């Protein structure tokens, strides 16, 4: 029986031997194969809380892989994606990326979905000086200051405040300009950050903050919160929420009949097909952030072809069937890497990183240029308003004009209906 106690180092030893053997095997037989493929590795949330987005992103990335391979690969090499499920759990991330780098010997790594799953990979990237294209993390690089980090989410160079900038600019452009604001956010990473940025902006604009609270993400009924907001009569209401609570909040606002002039801002989930079709007309009038909507100003080259392919691939997989919000960006962050490798003609991370810092990229989400901190050089967090929605059909949301772009000025596609309700 005693021998059981010794297991751990023995297994480590055994594993070590196995690894050496495997490495030898690769050196002997696999070398030829390793030369004509480029392996891109990542962890992605395929189970757990973020899996809805993670699975959608993965499908988009596979569409990209097939596109690239069909046109002959990168530098004449076929592309292979190597990925593992991070279970939406940050604790799995360090292990996954070392496995990818040291055992699978991938050539490049990109991030999984979301701040919580990007941050734990950063120390590894910095230690090895790797280029790290990242998918939808908010202000991850503020603490790390890593120069090879590139965030595809168009938050902008000051992600915390840029996020809600559009919401405030729209509000302040109205006559009379609002004087008071209510801030409400979920108790979780993104929502708190977005609310912090909104708070700073509100202070700068001299808006009186009459309500400033956060709530537990599992709150089942939002009417107490909406009632408390209503009692303070704010001119505008900024909400930073996650999918389930976004729905609860919208329902409660409609039921209570919240009277305010502008409502929305940072509600995650209202962009998802399943939630839009569930809420239908209740969405009308809400002004919320978005990243891509089917408006004529945003028809970048390639995005529609991509969506057609994505929608076909996504069928029956239990993921977002239209894929507007995140999916084009999941395609684009690989396009950026692709173009950088092709332009430098090199597999050297330092060289590619330098190119990515300087160049402008042409992607399905438009032209992308990065700021020194790895965020987009200029924010493109859209503020859109839900308008003229009369039913709960999916087709309603795939046509132009139900989500008109109000901000930034470059992409505006319609007029604001103001006020929200009075």
């Amino acid at each position, binding site marked *: 029986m005693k021998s059981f106690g010794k297991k751990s180092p023995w297994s480590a030893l055994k594993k070590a031997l196995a690894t050496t053997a495997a490495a030898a095997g690769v050196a002997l037989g696999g070398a030829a194969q390793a030369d004509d493929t480029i392996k891109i590795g990542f962890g992605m949330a395929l*189970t*757990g*809380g973020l*899996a*809805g987005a993670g*699975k959608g992103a993965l499908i988009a990335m596979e569409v990209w892989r097939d596109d690239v391979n069909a046109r002959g690969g990168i530098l004449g090499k076929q592309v292979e994606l190597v990925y593992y499920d991070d279970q939406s759990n940050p604790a799995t991330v360090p292990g996954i990326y070392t496995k990818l780098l040291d055992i699978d010997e991938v050539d490049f790594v990109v991030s999984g979905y979301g701040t919580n799953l990007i941050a734990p990979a950063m120390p590894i990237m910095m230690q090895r000086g790797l280029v790290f294209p990242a998918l939808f993390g908010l202000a991850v690089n503020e603490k790390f200051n890593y120069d090879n980090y590139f965030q595809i989410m168009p938050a902008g160079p000051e992600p915390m405040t840029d996020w809600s900038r559009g919401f405030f600019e729209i509000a302040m452009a109205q006559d009379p300009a609002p004087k008071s604001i209510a801030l409400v956010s979920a*108790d979780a990473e993104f929502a708190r950050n977005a609310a912090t940025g909104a708070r700073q902006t509100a202070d700068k604009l001299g808006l009186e903050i009459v309500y400033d*609270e*956060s*709530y*537990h993400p*599992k*709150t*089942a*009924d939002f*009417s*107490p*919160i909406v*009632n*408390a907001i209503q*009692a*303070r009569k704010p001119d505008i209401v900024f909400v930073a929420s996650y*999918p*389930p609570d976004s*729905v*609860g909040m919208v*329902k*409660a606002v*409609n*039921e*209570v*009949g919240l009277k305010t002039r502008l409502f929305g801002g940072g509600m995650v*989930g209202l962009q*998802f097909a*399943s*939630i839009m079709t*569930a809420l239908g007309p*209740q969405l009308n009038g809400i002004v919320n952030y978005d990243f891509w909507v089917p408006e004529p100003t945003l028809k970048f080259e390639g995005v529609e072809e991509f969506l057609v392919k994505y929608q076909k691939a996504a069928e029956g*997989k*239990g*993921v*977002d069937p239209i894929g507007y919000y995140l999916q084009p960006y999941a395609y684009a962050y690989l396009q950026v890497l692709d173009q950088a490798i092709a332009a430098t003609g090199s597999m050297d991370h330092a060289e590619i990183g330098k190119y990515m810092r300087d160049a402008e990229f042409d992607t399905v989400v438009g032209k992308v240029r990065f700021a020194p901190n790895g965020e987009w050089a200029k924010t493109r967090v859209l503020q859109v308003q839900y308008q003229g929605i009369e039913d*709960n059909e999916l087709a309603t949301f795939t046509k132009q004009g139900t989500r008109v772009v109000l901000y930034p000025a470059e992409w505006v596609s319609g007029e604001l209906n103001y006020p929200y309700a009075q």
Partner: protein
Amino acid sequence: MFTVDLLLSALVAGVLLGGFYAAVSLGLTVAFGQLNIVNIAHPAFVILGSYVAYMCNSRWGLDPILVGLAFTPVFFLIGVGAYRIYYESFERRDDEALRGLAFFFGVMFIIEVGLIMVYGVDFRTVQAPYIGQNFKIGAVGVPTRMLVPFCVSLVMFACVYLYMSRTFNGRAIMAVAQDRLALQLMAADPVRIKQLGFGIGIGTTALAGALLIIIIPIEPSIGRLYIGQVFAIAVLAGLGSIPGTLVAALVLGIAESLVATFFGPSWAPAVAFGILLLALAFRPQGLFGR
């Protein structure tokens, strides 16, 4: 900030929320309180009920509450089956405390993963005419989305309560955990009685699941969020007391609503569980315990 209107609104919202919590906890009160079976997978069964309602609603447009009712017998049978396994594997070997708990833990995971594999992880909702309506009594808004589940929950409670207190089998269920021997002397088979009781407990989750999906959008792992809440209510109630469960659920709902309205919503869950911890420390027999 305090106004009478706000207080009234908070109380109404709390009562409605409490009614919903009560529906979700009822089955656990029977299984855990009366039969001593620590069914930690109870919320997972509720989610299963939600998905059944979702499936019938999205495919055939059936009303979620009717679906819940129609599937109650099916869930009852699932409960009976689950109890057979539980009995054969644990109770008969007098082994239920630790291993029985672990068993239901595993069941919870299996249900969750099964749902993920079939339905994916997208959020699901149902459509029904009463979702999105509301009316006002004075300045207080009453959303029918919350009112309908509240009423259904009350009816459910009345039915289970009457069954438990008026029928032979019902009384036997109430008695089985306390005195097996006396039950046997009355010519009732304790195993069969417990099987019946557990079946009822799981049966209620079909309807409770339908109510859940009416109130909030669901995804497979959302059940975990309710483990704490339902156990808190069952304990607060004094194990096994059906009226106690209703009162405890209402207390929890009102406490959460008041805190959310007046102190800040992020403290709401801690207050609920704080009450539970205090109750456990100072009055472990619960509000209605003997």
